[in-house]
């Protein structure tokens, strides 16, 4: 055991090495753009230099002179594609702004031409030689720009269900002993995965193969088929590895069908690798948000009234919103709660999912406000959380399936040395540095979605698992192999896993932190089917149990008690009794509460996710507590974070190594979301200014010298059969609030707008 591979505690799997570690560190892993293609044409995008207006015309004469040029596709000669429908409104697409459909420009960096050439270099050079003339209109950039329109999220977006409320907020707030009203802001941020937005399309006999990094190969397959107007069975998406995604590769972006249509017309494979700056506008992002929090509390710290109002930027075309009030209204005990989320439209590309989409901005507001309230009450902020801890969420009074929030605070506090913290701000210095400590809660919904798997077991003890899951750095290969090895009673090294291919049994989007819970539940179920075949050969008389009544996961193949249990299996004897050498099973699993059309939707690449706050009789969340030490240089006001500590409880931990890695990356991301990451918008032109990795600041190693992850044992039998709570998006929630709470502790200055730059620190 090492720091990277922590000793498993109760209800944790072994920290086996990553399944894909060797191919990745030796460069053998083939990402989408690495896939060898026969004689490809290289595509290079031309994107708009204005955010609103229309294209008057192109001058392509200079571009056409470039040797190796094949074609230049613009709205004047592009194939017309089918009308797109937004992912959050029941479709597949990240945006309904359809490029190359007309001369209209609806956003900065809209794709306006695709240049095709025999080499990447020729395509790029020709693209640089394309001249475009525009008639520009004055765009609306963001909240404070003239020309925004605002409306409640409810009713615009099917993904946003309700504005939670309970009791009488106004009355309770008016009569509260202690009141806090505060406004908070979070910035525009882009995912910036290392791997760029690449797409290669190959047609063969009417069959389309797409190599593209995707968090949802079945969504991409069906979405592209719909846009092209062809049968989804004619489309295959392959991506064995995704080089980071963070939500940006979950829904279908317009580029894919465009490239597919061009490849079909050219009758030649086409390869696109969009540039880093194009990635800021041809995909999604985390939109800027604004919040007003009102809290009323009694003198002993109990919340009596809470109101959270959020506003989010979206495009003119689409009503996207993350709507994080569903958790901020349910996190703490409070009898009188009110909330409202609005969508503010501007001339921007459509935002989308970005790691913990609702939680990052909305918990920044709530967890900052809780710290402010604690200071007002002269209470330790952890004690304030303890006073308001609850096993029932206040809106519908549904019980949490498990909740270890305070255990996380206590474990984290011990490791961090919280008891030595000064309650009074600006009292600790170390040479030129002001030192401050802060904390915040994190939580993330436990979500599951239907998934299918095929499992093959050989007499010699080797197994192959097929499921169209996604390796986005999360450790999907590893935990799927572990789940199968565990259920089949074979060594981890004997399991082969095939994922990232839409020809495999469908798995849900690798989003909403549902992957491990969904894929491992499905794989464990199908492994049970395999065991059933073998047990039946050995114990022909054992009766079947009716799984539909006994467990979650309806409509599953019934298996006997022996196959379900951990009872050891004499594999070779069973195979001999069967008289064959391979057993292969396919199964479809769905979580309890999944709608009736779940399996059909699963094959159609449509999400039917359940969990979190949207279950009928319970609420399921993973929790954690995060602690931050900041140091602020009293001369330069530079802000540094020498220590990040997070304690997390997430049900069964499949692998402490991959779990720790995810949570550690999350903590660093969370710190980064407070201090570094922000996309700057030129207010006059509604264009992104710092659209590159030099100017869009991400933390380097020197910015995160000390990160400690503590995994708490937790068992939850009321979520999914695997007992897993998603943790991929747990680590980076609340960190931003913990950073600002620490800055307050260091300086006495409360900062309510992110990111915090050195110029925001007063003397």
């Amino acid at each position, binding site marked *: 055991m090492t720091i990277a591979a922590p000793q498993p505690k109760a209800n944790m799997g072994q920290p086996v090495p990553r399944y894909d570690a060797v191919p990745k560190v030796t460069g053998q892993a083939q990402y989408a753009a690495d896939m060898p293609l026969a004689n490809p044409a290289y595509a290079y995008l031309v994107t708009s230099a204005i955010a609103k207006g229309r294209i008057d015309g192109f001058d392509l004469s200079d571009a056409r002179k470039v040797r190796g040029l094949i074609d230049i596709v613009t709205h004047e000669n592009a194939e017309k594609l089918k009308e797109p429908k937004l992912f959050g409104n029941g479709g597949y697409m990240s945006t309904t702004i359809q490029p190359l459909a007309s001369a209209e420009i609806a956003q900065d960096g809209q794709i306006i031409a695709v240049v095709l050439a025999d080499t990447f270099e020729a395509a790029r050079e020709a693209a640089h030689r394309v001249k475009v003339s525009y008639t520009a209109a004055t765009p609306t950039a963001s909240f404070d720009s003239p020309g925004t329109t605002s409306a409640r999220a409810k009713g615009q977006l099917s993904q946003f269900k309700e504005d939670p409320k309970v009791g009488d907020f106004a009355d309770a707030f008016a009569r509260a002993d202690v009141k806090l009203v505060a406004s908070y802001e979070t910035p525009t941020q882009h995912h910036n995965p290392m791997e760029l937005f690449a797409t290669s399309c190959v047609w063969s006999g009417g069959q389309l193969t797409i190599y593209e990094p995707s968090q949802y190969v079945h969504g991409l397959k069906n979405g592209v088929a719909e846009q092209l107007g062809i049968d989804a069975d004619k489309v295959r998406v392959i991506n064995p590895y995704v080089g980071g995604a963070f939500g940006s590769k979950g829904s279908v972006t317009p580029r894919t069908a465009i490239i597919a249509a061009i490849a079909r017309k050219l009758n030649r494979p086409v390869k696109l690798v969009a540039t880093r700056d194009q990635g800021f506008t041809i995909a999604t992002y985390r939109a800027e948000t604004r919040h007003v929090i009102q809290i009323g509390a009694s003198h002993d710290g109990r919340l009596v009234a809470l109101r959270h109002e959020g506003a989010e930027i979206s495009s003119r075309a689409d009503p996207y919103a993350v709507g994080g009030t569903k958790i901020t209204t349910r996190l703490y005990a409070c009898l009188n709660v009110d909330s409202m989320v609005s969508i503010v439209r501007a001339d921007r590309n459509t935002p989308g999912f970005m790691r913990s989409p609702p939680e990052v901005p909305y918990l920044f507001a709530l967890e900052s406000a809780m710290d402010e309230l604690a200071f007002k009450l002269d209470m330790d902020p952890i004690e304030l959380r303890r006073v308001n801890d609850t096993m029932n969420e206040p809106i519908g009074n549904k019980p949490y399936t498990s909740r270890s929030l305070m255990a996380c605070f206590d474990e984290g506090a011990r490791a961090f040395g919280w008891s030595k913290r000064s309650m009074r701000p600006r009292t600790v210095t170390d040479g030129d540095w002001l030192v401050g400590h802060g904390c915040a809660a994190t939580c993330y919904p436990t979500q599951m979605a239907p998934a299918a798997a095929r499992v093959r077991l050989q007499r010699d003890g080797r197994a192959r698992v097929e499921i169209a899951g996604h390796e986005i750095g999360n450790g999907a290969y590893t935990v799927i192999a572990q789940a199968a090895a565990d259920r089949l009673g074979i060594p981890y090294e004997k399991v082969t896993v095939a994922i990232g291919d839409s020809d495999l049994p469908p798995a849900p989007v690798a989003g909403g932190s549902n992957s491990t819970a969904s894929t491992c539940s499905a794989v464990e179920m199908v492994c049970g089917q395999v065991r059933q075949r073998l047990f039946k050969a050995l114990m022909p008389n054992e009766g079947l149990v009716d799984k539909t009544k006994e467990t979650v996961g309806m409509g599953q193949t019934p298996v006997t008690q022996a196959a379900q249990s951990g009872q050891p299996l004499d594999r070779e004897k069973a195979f001999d009794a069967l008289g064959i050498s391979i057993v292969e099973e396919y199964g479809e699993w769905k979580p309890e509460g999944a709608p009736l059309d779940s399996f059909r939707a699963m094959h159609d690449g449509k999400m039917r996710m359940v969990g979190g706050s949207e279950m009928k009789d319970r609420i399921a969340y993973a929790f954690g507590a995060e602690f931050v030490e900041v140091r602020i240089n009293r001369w*330069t006001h530079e802000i540094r974070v020498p220590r990040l500590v997070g304690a997390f409880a997430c049900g069964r931990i499949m692998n402490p190594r991959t779990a720790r890695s995810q949570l550690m990356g999350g903590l660093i991301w969370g710190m980064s979301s407070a201090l570094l990451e922000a996309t*700057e918008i030129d207010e006059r032109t509604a264009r992104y200014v710092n659209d590159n990795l030099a100017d869009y600041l991400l933390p380097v190693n020197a910015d995160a010298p000390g990160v400690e992850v503590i995994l708490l044992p937790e068992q939850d039998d009321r979520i999914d059969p695997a007992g897993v709570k998603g943790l991929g998006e747990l680590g980076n929630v609340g960190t931003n609030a913990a950073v600002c709470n620490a800055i307050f502790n260091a300086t006495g200055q409360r900062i309510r707008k992110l990111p915090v730059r050195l110029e925001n620190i007063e003397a």
Partner: protein
Amino acid sequence: MRAFIFQRATDPSAAVQALAAAASANSPLTEAAVQPLAGGTTLLDLMKLDVMRPATLVDINPLAGNWSTIDFDGGNLKLGALARMSDVAAHPQVRQHYPVIADSLRLAASPQLRNMATLGGNVLQRTRCSYFRDVSYSACNKRHPGSGCAAMEGFNRTHAVLGTSDQCIATYPGDFAQALMALDATVEITAKSGVRTMPFAELHKAPGRSPEIETVLAPGELVSAFTIAGRWPRSLYLKARDRQSYEFALASAAVALDVQDGVVRDGRIALGGVATVPWRVREAEVMLKDQRLDEALAARAADAAFSAAVPRRNNAFKIDLGKRVVARALQQAATMEIRA
């Protein structure tokens, strides 16, 4: 990036011949059709971004045999223009006698870049102004004289407050040049006509009415070496930036002091991250002369250093920040321990 011809220069005269071939009287070095290639850490980026479009690159790395010297003769220092940043930063005598040089190099870029980048290329690196580096913005007086400046009323947090004009506010991004300014370095320039030297402080040109002209170098001229007279053990480089490493300065100060019996005999201050060119502040330096350096004097000198500053919408903080950086750097230099 446009297709280009790649040539390799085998000796200095061949290099300057090749570079001078396409020289035209009106063309600034940065727009010349023939460009020298050393470490390539700036030029290749700008070519990929279509900001620079040279027809020919002349690889001058083969000249490194003669041009990468790090020579300390006990009293003076000579640095070849093709010396790599990392080699100079790690050189024991540079670290001992010229900490401001070692610091300015060590705190710049990343180890990978410092291993590639040369001193000559470093002092000539071009601005990081986002509007300059993105050709989709048509207004940039550096790229297209007379087209305007998108940064002036745009997002200009990282832009300059000193040495600006109504044509350009792009910040000079380097660190090492500030050290050279503070140490009164001489720059050696090799041209077709021979080798000449001049004060390093005269190399860069503030934007004025011609922001496209960034140095006095003509096409065909190469920076070949830097020399520094005397030793400056009481010197340092203080750099304030958004992250701990791999980041340009928001404000920085190169400071060198000659202190005898507690009195400043000679004090030098150059500023980075705040000005359009490497920026020496003599008006602050004169205040130090023959004085005992205390907190109040450091603050007064810092105020003087920024007396001419002109803020824009997002960068006004740099004035206050810059003053604190100067004041802190002066005090640190005054009290630093000198290795014998």
